[in-house]
């Protein structure tokens, strides 16, 4: 499985020029205060993970990977692991930058980071089983629909909470980080299990 | 050792290989107890299949020219050269008999046969 993780890292490395350009572009926007650092960096690490699916698909790596020892199992495992590592790493970088540039207090940066981890993990957890089922090409439409739906639902939830549950939820405040972390872990695990089952039967 | 294979020849490749090794043994180019290339390395160097070289060696072993020792290789056998040549002569006699039968049934004269023979002999 380590081999497959390396493969994804090499794909990202091969895209280093694009990666640098994106970083510079968003660096400028962040500097100008147009973008939220904490959100942008992990979001881009997720986009890069999706790019690795595209590269795999283009050269039919998936097929080749199955011919390697434990190919199917390792394909699923490595995608989840690389994604998690990527998001956590980028959040650490993001949080540090946030604290330096915006003077955000440590506690607040951690709170925000965990919320973002939860959000992105949720997206991944829904997305990956679909990609493993349909392949990235057919899953693309789904990704657009999902992005739109999430934005809509997210917007509604925020409105909803503000209106009614502002007071009721406050007793959870001390535990919210732990709950989020636990939820993140659970949804990723469930998603991983589903993907594994789907992929072990996938015809290529 | 040189072995030259012709893919366009009507003679099967294993026979070409066996024949050339046989003549090298008869002419003392290959000496008794000499180690011959393995089935697989011969196949590689001649760019032919393993089955072909195996068949060639089996043919040679059957005629007593080589012996295959499992795990050790293929060796040139001790041969009675006179006896081997005698056998070759016998083969020629058999073929000639066949020629004569065909010639006689078709009323072809001995002189005519000799003429064909000398032309072919010169051409080879």
């Amino acid at each position, binding site marked *: 499985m380590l*081999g497959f993780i390396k493969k994804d890292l090499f794909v990202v490395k091969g895209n280093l020029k694009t990666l640098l350009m994106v970083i510079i572009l968003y660096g400028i926007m962040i500097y100008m205060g147009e973008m939220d650092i904490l959100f942008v960096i992990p979001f881009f690490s997720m986009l890069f993970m999706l790019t690795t699916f595209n590269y795999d698909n283009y050269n039919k790596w998936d097929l080749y990977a199955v011919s390697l020892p434990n190919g199917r199992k390792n394909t699923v495992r490595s995608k989840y692991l690389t994604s998690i590592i990527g998001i956590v790493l980028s959040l650490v970088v993001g949080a540090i930058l946030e604290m330096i540039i915006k003077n955000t207090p440590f506690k607040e940066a951690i709170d925000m980071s965990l919320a973002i981890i939860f959000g992105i993990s949720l997206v991944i957890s829904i997305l990956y089983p679909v990609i493993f089922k349909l392949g990235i090409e057919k899953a693309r439409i789904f990704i657009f629909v999902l992005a739109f739906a999430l934005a809509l639902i997210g917007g509604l939830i925020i409105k909803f909470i503000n209106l009614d549950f502002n007071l009721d939820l406050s007793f959870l405040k001390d535990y919210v980080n732990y709950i989020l972390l636990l939820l993140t872990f659970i949804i990723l695990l469930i998603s991983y299990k589903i993907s594994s089952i789907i992929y072990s039967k996938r015809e290529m | 050792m040189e072995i030259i294979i012709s893919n366009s020849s009507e003679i099967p490749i294993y026979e070409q290989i066996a024949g050339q090794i046989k003549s090298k043994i008869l002419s003392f180019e290959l000496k008794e107890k000499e180690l011959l290339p393995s089935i697989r390395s011969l196949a590689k160097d001649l760019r032919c299949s393993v089955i072909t070289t195996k068949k060639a060696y089996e043919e040679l072993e059957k005629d007593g020219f080589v012996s295959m020792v499992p795990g050790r290789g293929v060796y040139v056998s001790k041969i009675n050269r006179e006896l081997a040549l005698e056998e070759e002569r016998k083969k020629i006699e058999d073929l000639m008999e066949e020629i004569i039968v065909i010639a006689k049934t078709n009323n072809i004269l001995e002189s005519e046969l000799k003429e064909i023979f000398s032309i072919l002999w010169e051409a080879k």
Partner: protein
Amino acid sequence: MENVICIENLEKKYDNFTLKINHLEVPKGMIMGFIGENGAGKTTTIKAILDIIKNYKGEIKLFDSVNKEKAKEDIGVVLDEAFFPEILSPKDINMVMKSSYKNWDQEMFYKYLKQFNLPEKSQIKTFSKGMRKKLEIITALAHHPKLLILDEATSGLDPVGRREVLDLFQEFMQKEENTIFLSTHITTDLEHIADYITFIDKGEIIFTKMTSELLEDYGIVKSSREEFKSIDKKDIVCYIEEKYDVEMLVSNKKSFKKKYDFVSIDKVSLEELMVLMIKGVK
């Protein structure tokens, strides 16, 4: 003889194609060529062997075991148009494979890269078609597999490249326990080095025979329509009526010549044999 691949009653149905292999054995220590038209089922068979397709009936054993994952450590694979993402370099591939196979031989891989003049640090996408094929082949060889499964491994190579690669295969075969199963439509490659030929047509195996037997015993007979009438159809495998003559495939040149001495018989190439068996009337 021990078999490295053993297929029994394999059946896989698609909307417009059914693969049905009752029996196929690949003997250990041999090179078996797998020939047939495009779409005859070669790639599907190879995919089933490697578990790339799954929902099929029947049984496939590799090294006498149904546990394919375990077998994969000992198999080297070249697939038709499926490989590493082209943004990777041979150097990257080495790193990935080092963590993927227990027996990955880095030195051997770099030695072959040098031998075939493949730049180790360039991305695959800068390679020519022939270079890619060579890279795929040496990648398949560098973990010391016992079985090579190659789907169209020589297509895209020029004659010189093909020869280099065939030499590599024969070098691999120096080990007595090693086996190659290769599909191709370039049959001239096989005529020389393959020990056995398996011919597949419309999803079914037509025959498995020794190459030497095929090339020495089979023949192609060309005759006039008049002569063709006098030939017993039992004595021929199949025939094609062409504009100026009739072409027949016979399975025993010598006995055919004895019976019909008025015809001339030519040696048959695998290519002619394949065409006659696909297009010919039985």
